C-alpha cells in the first residue's frame, strides 16, 4: 500500500468560511478512510480582521501529531495566506482565487511570493460560486471542489459531508453550497486535466473505515455523558466552553442538568455539594477559572468529597493568551491551593485519551473520595481526530463508592484511619450515618481537632489514600525497542504526539532513542520513570511551558540532569524542534 501523509491548510480571513471548509475537508477524508488530525487557529476577537487557518494531516497510518510542513495550501485570502508561505514544502500545491472580488495589491499578492517549484492552481472561486449559486459566499466550497478534482478525491465524499453539514439550514442553502462545490470540481477537472495528481485515490483499501470525526472537547463531553454524569456546573471560558455547550444539549436527554453558574467558585462549590449528596457532577474551566477554584478543591481534599474538574489549559499567566495552547498549569493542578493537599491529576495526550480519562475520572473520584483534575490544553481540546466511536466500559459507569456497613450504624467514623486511607462514606438520606464534612482538620468522626498527633495522622491518611490510587492509574507507556537508549524523551499532554513523531523519525534514521508517555501526573509511577531515566544516557523533556513543570516534578527522581526543551509560542510543539534537539544531544551530549 502506498503511504499517504499529506498536510493541507485552508487559510482565509475571518468570515471567509475557512473553518467550515477545513471541517468539511476533515469529514470527507475521514469518510474516505484515512486517519485525520485537524487543528484550527482563529482570532480571539469574534468579528475582526483576524486570520483563520485550519491544518489537517491526512494519513494512511495512524497520525499522532501535526507536522510542520504543509503540502497543500487552499487560499481564500491572498494577503492572509502570505503568512503561511514559510510552512510550505518546496513542491507544495497552492489553490487560490485568481480573480478575487477585491483587487490584490502587488505587495499583498500570494503568488508573487511562492517558490518557482510550487504547483499553482488558480481558480476563479468567486466568479464560479457566484455563477453557480448567485452568491460568492460558497467560494470556500468551490475551492474544495477544486481540491477534490486536482487530488483525485471522490466528490461523493464531499457531497455527503456538505449535505450533512447543511441539512438543517434548509434545501436552498444546501443546494447553493452543493452547486458552489460542483462548479469548482468541474472547472478544475477540465482546466487541470493534465495535472491531476490522485495522491489519495490510489489506495487499494481504506485503512481506517468506520471512524467519526471528534474533537477533544466533544470526546470529553461524550465521556462524561457515557460515564453517567448527572449535573454539570460551569462558567464560560475559552477553551472549555464547548464542553458546557455540548452537555447543555445532550445532558437533559438523560435526565441530567447543566447549570451555568455565576463564577468558577460557585461551579466547583455546586459540584462538591452534588457529590457530597452522592451524585456524579463535573465542571470544566481553564487556568484563570481553575485558580479561583483552588480553595474549594482543597476543601474537597480535606473533607474527602469527590469532584471532577477539567482544566483546559491556555496561555498564561492571568488572562494570558485565551486562544493559544500551553501546558503551564501543571504546578497549579498538582500543588495549587492552601496546605498539603494531595489530589489526583491525569493528563490525556490525544483525543481518544480525552475520552478515556474523563470517563475514568468519575470512578477515581468516588473510589478515592477526592477531587480529580483532568488536564487538557487548547490544542487537545480543539483539535479533531477521527476515531472509532468511543464507548464507556461498564466499569466506568458503575459507581465506586465505599459505603459504611450496617454494623457501624450509630457508631460511625466517617474518616476512619484505615490501611488504604479510604474511609466509608455515607450520603445524606442514609439513616444512622449523619456526619458533618468539614474543611477544618478533624478526627475520625469528623469533629474539628487541631492536636499535633491528629493532624499528622490525618494528613498521612490522605496522602496514603492518594498514593494508593496509583494501582488504578495507567503506568507510563514506553515507545522504544527497550534496553539502553542514547536519548530518552519524556512527555505529557498534547506535546506527546509531537514527541512520538520526532522519536519515530529519529528511529527511522537509525538513532537509538525512545519515548515515555506520562498520563498519570499525580500520583506518578516513580519506579517506571526512574528506570527509563536510568536506561537513557540523556533524558529530554519537551514541554509547552517556560519553567519545565513536568521536569520539575519528575526530574528529581534521578541524579541525572534532565535536558529541558521549553517553548511558550502558543502553538503546538513542532516535532522538528524536538528532532533537532535529539540530533544536537546525540552530536554533542547534553549542555
Amino acid at each position, binding site marked *: 500500500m502506498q503511504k499517504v501523509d499529506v498536510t493541507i491548510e485552508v487559510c482565509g480571513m475571518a468570515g471567509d468560511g475557512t473553518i467550515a471548509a477545513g471541517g468539511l475537508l476533515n469529514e470527507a477524508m475521514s469518510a474516505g478512510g484515512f486517519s485525520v488530525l485537524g487543528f484550527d487557529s482563529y482570532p480571539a476577537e469574534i468579528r475582526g480582521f483576524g486570520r483563520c487557518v485550519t491544518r489537517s494531516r491526512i494519513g494512511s497510518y495512524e497520525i499522532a501529531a501535526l507536522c510542520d510542513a504543509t503540502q497543500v495550501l487552499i487560499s481564500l485570502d491572498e494577503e492572509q495566506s502570505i503568512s503561511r508561505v514559510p510552512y510550505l514544502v518546496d513542491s507544495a500545491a497552492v489553490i487560490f482565487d485568481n480573480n478575487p472580488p477585491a483587487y490584490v495589491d502587488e505587495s499583498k499578492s500570494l503568488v508573487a511570493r511562492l517558490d518557482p517549484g510550487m504547483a499553482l492552481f488558480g481558480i476563479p472561486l468567486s466568479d464560479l460560486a457566484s455563477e453557480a449559486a448567485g452568491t460568492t459566499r460558497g467560494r470556500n466550497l468551490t475551492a474544495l471542489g477544486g481540491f477534490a478534482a486536482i487530488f483525485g478525491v471522490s466528490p461523493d465524499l464531499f457531497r455527503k459531508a456538505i449535505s450533512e453539514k447543511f441539512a438543517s439550514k434548509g434545501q436552498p442553502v444546501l443546494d447553493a453550497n452543493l452547486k458552489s462545490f460542483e462548479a469548482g470540481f468541474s472547472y478544475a477537472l477540465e482546466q487541470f486535466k493534465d495535472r491531476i495528481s490522485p495522491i489519495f485515490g490510489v489506495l487499494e483499501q481504506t485503512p481506517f473505515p468506520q471512524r467519526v470525526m471528534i474533537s477533544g472537547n466533544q470526546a470529553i463531553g461524550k465521556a462524561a455523558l457515557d460515564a453517567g454524569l*448527572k*449535573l454539570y*456546573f460551569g462558567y464560560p471560558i475559552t477553551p472549555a466552553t464547548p464542553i458546557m455547550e455540548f452537555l447543555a444539549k445532550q445532558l437533559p436527554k438523560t435526565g441530567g*442538568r447543566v*447549570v451555568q*453558574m*455565576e*463564577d468558577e*467558585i*460557585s*461551579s466547583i*462549590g*455546586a*459540584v*462538591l*455539594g*452534588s*457529590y*457530597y*449528596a*452522592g*451524585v456524579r*457532577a463535573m465542571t470544566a474551566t481553564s487556568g484563570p477559572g481553575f485558580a479561583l477554584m483552588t*480553595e*474549594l478543591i482543597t*476543601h474537597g481534599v480535606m*473533607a474527602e468529597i469527590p469532584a471532577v474538574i477539567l482544566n483546559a489549559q491556555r496561555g498564561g499567566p492571568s488572562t494570558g493568551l485565551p486562544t493559544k495552547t500551553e501546558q503551564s498549569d501543571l504546578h497549579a493542578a498538582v500543588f495549587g491551593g492552601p496546605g498539603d493537599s494531595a489530589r489526583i491529576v491525569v493528563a490525556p495526550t490525544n483525543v481518544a485519551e480525552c475520552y478515556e480519562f474523563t470517563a475514568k475520572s468519575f470512578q477515581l473520584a468516588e473510589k478515592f473520595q477526592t477531587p480529580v483534575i483532568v488536564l487538557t490544553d487548547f490544542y487537545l481540546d480543539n483539535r479533531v481526530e477521527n476515531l472509532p466511536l468511543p464507548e464507556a466500559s461498564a466499569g466506568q459507569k458503575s459507581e465506586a463508592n465505599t459505603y459504611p456497613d450496617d454494623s457501624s450504624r450509630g457508631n460511625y467514623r466517617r474518616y476512619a484511619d484505615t490501611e488504604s486511607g479510604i474511609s466509608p462514606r455515607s450520603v*445524606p*438520606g*442514609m*439513616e*444512622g*450515618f*449523619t*456526619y*458533618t*464534612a*468539614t*474543611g*477544618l482538620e478533624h478526627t475520625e468522626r469528623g*469533629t*474539628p481537632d487541631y492536636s499535633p498527633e491528629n493532624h499528622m495522622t490525618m494528613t498521612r491518611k490522605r496522602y496514603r489514600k492518594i498514593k494508593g490510587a496509583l494501582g488504578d492509574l495507567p503506568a507510563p507507556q514506553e515507545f522504544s525497542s527497550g534496553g539502553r537508549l542514547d536519548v530518552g524523551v519524556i512527555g505529557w499532554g498534547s506535546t506527546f504526539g509531537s514527541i512520538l513523531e520526532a522519536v519515530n523519525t529519529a528511529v527511522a534514521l537509525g538513532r537509538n532513542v525512545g519515548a515515555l508517555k506520562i498520563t498519570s501526573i499525580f500520583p506518578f509511577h516513580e519506579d517506571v520513570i526512574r528506570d527509563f531515566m536510568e536506561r537513557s544516557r540523556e533524558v529530554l523533556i519537551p514541554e509547552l511551558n517556560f519553567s519545565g513543570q513536568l521536569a520539575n516534578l519528575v526530574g528529581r527522581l534521578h541524579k541525572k540532569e534532565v535536558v529541558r526543551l521549553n517553548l511558550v509560542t502558543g502553538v503546538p510543539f513542532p516535532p522538528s524542534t524536538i528532532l533537532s534537539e535529539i540530533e544536537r544531544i546525540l552530536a554533542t551530549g547534553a549542555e
Partner: protein
Amino acid sequence: MKTPGRLLEKKVQEIKDSNEFSVRSSALPTWCPGCGYFGIHHALNSCLTELGLPLHEVVIVSGIGCAGRYPFFGGTYGLHTVHGRTLPVATGVKMANPSLTVYAVGGDGDGLAIGGGHLPHIIRRNVNVNYLLFDNSIYGLTKGQPSPSSPVGTTSKASPFGTIDKPLNATLMALTYGAGFVARLFAGDPDGMKKAFAEGTRHEGFSFFHIYSTCVTFDKVNKTWENLKHQVRPLPEKYDPSNLRNAFHTALEDDFSLGILFKNNSTT
C-alpha cells in the same frame, strides 16, 4: 468567661430531659455564653421537631465564622464549607437530591461580603434552599472587625477612627433580587423564628431569613441585647405578606419590624 462545670452539667441534663438531643448532637455549641446564635439553634431545632423531618434527610450547609460551626451541633447531615460559598454548595446538594431539606447558614461577613455575589443567583434560580443569615454586624471569630452591615462610625481595632462605609440592608437586597420568601427575625424571639422557619421550609422555592443577632463579646454598642430588645417589634397584625410593594416599603422605611415580609404564593 468559662461556664462552671456544674452549670454545664445542669444544662446538659436539661437538654436531655427536653428530648432535644434527638435533634442536637452531643457536641455542645462553642459560641460565647449569651450569644444570639443559641436562640437561632434552638428555634431551628424546634422547627425540625415540629415538621417531623427525619434528620438524615436534612442537610445543613455552612460557611466560615461563628455561624459556620452550626452543623457540628446538630444531628443532621452537615457540610461545613469554605468562607462565603454556602449558597452554591447548597445548590449542588439540593439539585443532586431534591428530596433532601437543605438549610444554608452563615453570618453577615460570609453572606454579605465574601459570599455576597451568590445571593442574587440562587434567588434567580429559585433553588429550594432555606438560607438563614445570622446578622450581628461584626466579624466575631476574627475578634471584632466591622462587617458590611455595621453602621457608619463603627469603631474597632480594624477601624479605630470609625467606619465610613454605608451598611447593606440584607432584607431589601433579597426583595430586590426577587426572593419569593423573605422574613426578618430576631435571635431573641425563638417563637417568631420557629414559626417563620417552619413556613419558609414548607415554601417551595428559595427562602431567606434575615436574623438580627448579637455579638456579646465584641459588640457593646450596636446590636446589643438591650438595644435590639427595644428596637424590634412585630409587623402589624393586618400586614399582608403577599404584597410586594408593601414589603419594599417596610424594608425601606423600617429596619426593625419582624415577621414574614414577603411570601410569593406562586412557585416558579
